[in-house]
């Protein structure tokens, strides 16, 4: 490894950091006297340009990752490039939603923090080494805490950031503790080395310690994706954070965390055994001759069992708690928990062929896109009405028909109604689960997931009912900034187009 290699491998991250510094210089240096709206617009546009530059860098960078001593530190290409492109596009979209923001006067700092957090997301997606993973996670998380607290005049924002920070710090500690056990058992920080060693005799004798490590890591990562029971921060953060920050947390941070989980699952399913590449870790069929780990409830290793437990708990609690919400942001938070539950199911039943990876990426990218749109609509309504209660949406179809149409499309897509993209995402994901895991257990889990998504229609319709059905209390038009409206309509249109032609995105993901 030399510095040239390092520079090439981290070109997209570097592009983002340069853009972040540029934003700061322009905003604090050149535009000190300018009005706020100009500063916001310039900062957001520079940020978008930075994301564009990083996307370009991603193309240039190609498939060469970064290795040290024959072990990969940062991988590149394939699903990682897909996840990184997704992170950059979604970051750009959240920046565009900032355009008429009024929650802060420090536009430059906000955009810079967003870009640095996104760089953390890129690192997480590519990382194949425990230390790099941890550095990326901290870079992303610290950015998210700051973004949550960015509305300095709002008490809710401060409270949300405090909760998020305390939970986050705790979960980072769990994660690090788990990592240290893993290192202690296997003597390596490289994911692939670790998972090879896990099947060796040493690890077999240290099985209880290994399980402790796995549980701790699952707790740390479960926090990032807001899986039950590590979800407690999500409703408060989604409710208190400024809308563009909440959209960023709900989309970009989720994409990065799930990309990391895919890396772990891929490494776990690529166990080199007797000259043959087998995938016995997650398929519950250890080949003869390998030391057999104990079997619990039909699961050969606790990783699958833990992920399945988290998944079931998230699907149930997320969907059922969302039924009772009166705040749309909290509703979106619980629905995010439920969606994380569906994805965890595909991670629990994972195959090293691209099938599972593609299905998960398709799901998380389209979910991120849809949820950014949903937060965009909520923030416009919130600014006009002053609250994000369900009743704030009363008569929206009269107050702003276009915004209302975007809300209709986005929420129906989240509910998984065809021909919108949310349906294909779910279908893809569940088909992947069923094709990996045979037998009654995965089938029952998919049945539960489908049943729970039927439940979810009820709470999405609660919002749409207010927008379209119930009589309006106030019929004054709600004005949205033209850029915001264009972005939201473009997102809605993308959701429809990708839903009508699902092969477009599937083909793009599969061809990387």
């Amino acid at each position: 490894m030399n510095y040239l290699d390092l520079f090439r491998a981290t070109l997209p991250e570097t592009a983002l950091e340069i853009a972040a510094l540029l934003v700061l210089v322009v905003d604090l240096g050149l535009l000190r006297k300018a009005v706020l709206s100009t500063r916001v617009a310039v900062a957001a546009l520079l940020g978008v340009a930075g994301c564009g530059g990083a996307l370009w860098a991603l193309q240039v960078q190609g498939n060469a990752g970064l290795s040290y001593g024959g072990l990969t530190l940062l991988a590149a290409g394939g699903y990682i490039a897909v996840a990184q492109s997704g992170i950059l596009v979604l970051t750009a979209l959240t920046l565009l939603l900032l355009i008429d923001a009024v929650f802060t006067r420090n536009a430059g700092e906000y955009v810079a923090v967003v870009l640095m957090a996104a760089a953390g997301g890129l690192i997480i997606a590519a990382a194949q080494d425990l230390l790099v993973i941890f550095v990326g996670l901290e870079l992303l998380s610290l950015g998210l805490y700051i973004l949550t607290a960015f509305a300095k005049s709002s008490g809710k924002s401060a409270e949300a950031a405090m909760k998020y920070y305390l939970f986050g710090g705790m979960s980072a500690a769990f994660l690090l503790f788990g990592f240290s056990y893993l290192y202690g058992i296997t003597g390596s920080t490289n994911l692939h080395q670790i998972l090879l060693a896990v099947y060796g005799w040493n690890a077999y004798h240290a099985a209880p310690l290994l399980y402790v490590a796995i549980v701790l890591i699952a707790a740390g990562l479960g926090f990032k994706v807001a899986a039950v029971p590590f979800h407690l921060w999500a409703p408060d953060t989604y409710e208190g954070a400024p809308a563009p920050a909440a959209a960023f947390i709900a989309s970009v941070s989720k994409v990065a965390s799930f990309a990391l989980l895919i890396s772990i699952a891929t490494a776990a399913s690529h166990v080199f055994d007797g000259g043959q590449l087998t995938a016995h870790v997650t398929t519950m069929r250890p080949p003869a001759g390998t030391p057999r780990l104990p079997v619990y409830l039909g699961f050969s290793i606790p990783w699958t069992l833990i992920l399945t437990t988290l998944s079931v708990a998230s699907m149930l609690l997320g969907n059922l708690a969302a039924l009772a919400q009166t705040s749309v942001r909290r509703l979106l938070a619980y629905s995010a928990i439920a969606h994380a539950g569906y994805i965890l199911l595909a991670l629990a039943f994972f195959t090293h062929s691209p099938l599972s990876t593609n299905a998960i990426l398709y799901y998380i990218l389209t979910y991120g896109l849809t949820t950014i749109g949903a937060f965009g609509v909520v923030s416009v309504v919130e600014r006009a009405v002053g609250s994000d209660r369900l009743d704030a949406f009363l008569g929206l179809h009269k107050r702003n028909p276009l915004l209302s149409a975007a809300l209709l499309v986005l929420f129906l897509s989240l509910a998984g109604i065809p021909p919108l993209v949310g349906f294909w995402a779910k279908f893809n994901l569940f088909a992947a689960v069923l094709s990996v895991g045979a037998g009654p257990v995965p089938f029952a889990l998919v049945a539960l997931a489908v049943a729970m998504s039927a439940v979810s229609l009820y709470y999405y319709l609660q919002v749409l009912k207010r927008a379209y059905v119930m009589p309006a209390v106030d019929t004054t038009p709600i004005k949205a900034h033209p850029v915001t409206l264009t972005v939201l309509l473009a997102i809605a249109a993308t959701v429809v187009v990708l839903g009508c032609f699902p092969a477009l995105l599937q083909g793009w993901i599969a061809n990387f």
Partner: protein
Amino acid sequence: MLAYTIYLSFAGALVQALLPKSKSGAARWLALLFAVAGLALAVAGFAAGAGQGRIVIVDAPWVPSMGIHYLLAADGISRVLVLLTGLAAVAGVLFSWNVELRTNEFFAFYLALIGGVYGVFLSFDLFLLFVFYEIAIVPKYFLIAIWGSTRCEYGAMKLALYSFVGSAMVLIGLLAAYSTSGSHSTSLIDLAHAGLSPHFQMWCFPLVFTGFAILAGMWPFHTWAPTGHVAAPTAASMLLAGVVMKLGAYGCLRVGIWLFPRGLDPWGFSFVGIGSWRDVFALLAIIGIVYGALVALAQSDFKFVIGYSSVSHMGFVLLGLMTLNQIGMTGAVLQMFSHGIIAGLLFAIVGRIVYDRTHTRQLAELETMHLARRLPFAAWAFVIAGMASMGLPGFSGFVAELQVLVGAWMAKPWWTIAAGVGIVVGVAYTWRALQKAFFSDVLPTAHTLEQEHEPSHELAAISWPEITGVVMLVGVSLFVGLYPRILLDTIEPAVKALLAGGGQ
């Protein structure tokens, strides 16, 4: 050609959505134009397909990586049901001529629903069928919730959730069939030939069949139907009873029975005479027939009478499907068509012609209004529709129910006897509603006079769309009743092919 019925309806929905809000007149005429164009295409497709088997209309890869095709095709059953949809769509527009609230949005949702229905009847790819099936759910919700009457939000939500739960069951079955078959194709034709194991079919069949049958109003999952019908605006009730319930029955036939025929085999043991899923569903169908009729007899709300009668009549469809013989299943398809026309007519009379003028549907209040004298057209239209609904010879319902009963006799004679009870009660509730609503000679009591602000207010004259609609629906029912061969010639070969296991 038939494929354009789908595109035309969705295009119509888009046009309506973009229309300025003030142009309610233009919205009506445009909706009529799109509906009539759809009907014309349906008729032309029906005529062009006469004597032919399955015609593939479009077959293009849609999601190549999963073997999903955009495969539209039409066999005899599809062509008959597309024709029904065309008729119901035109009639529905005619009977919603007086919708003044958000007219263009009403017709936008209406045409989107119609487009979804056309799509289901023409899809020969399992996933395409499912996609269209779900597209039809959302417009139904908004049609009922926004333009409905009695407890419309409750009725709409109940209907939407029942539909969605049903389609979730179907989706689970579809995912299972897709991953089990291993053929990497979701074409119905391929799946029917995939040789799914009998064991798999045995548990997948009831799942998928029940999922679809929820929408067909199968007892005990029928409760969405009466509340939904009552809450819905007239055109939506007409479509719900006329075509949406048929979507369920069609799914039972096309997906349930065609893909999982071995699911109907005997279990190998029997419990009080029930020895297979076929017996179970036939029993539920018969309970639906008798129960629906008995409950209709006890209703005090005119629209609930018709709502429960739909449950009863749909029972005949499901019973016909469970006969698994040529005549019974032909009868089931014909009954779908016939009930679509007759139920549409009944709902139109109750909802549009009577309720929109009297603003009450309570039979006790209608008794005091002497509607036979004040609305003679409505009274006579209801007499004819009632006769058709009772299954009198000369109307389409007679031929259809007769075939179902003959088919049931060939399967198990006691099915026919039990279902026959439903027909007798059917005469009774129709008669009772007719007598109470139109031909009663009860004088208004002082109490009801007080309630009525203007005791002898003039009822608005019957308008031309109503007359056109009634004449069209009565004419079709009478024509099919007198000359059933026109549909039977198309249905029979398709049913035969389906019973033979999917061949041409």
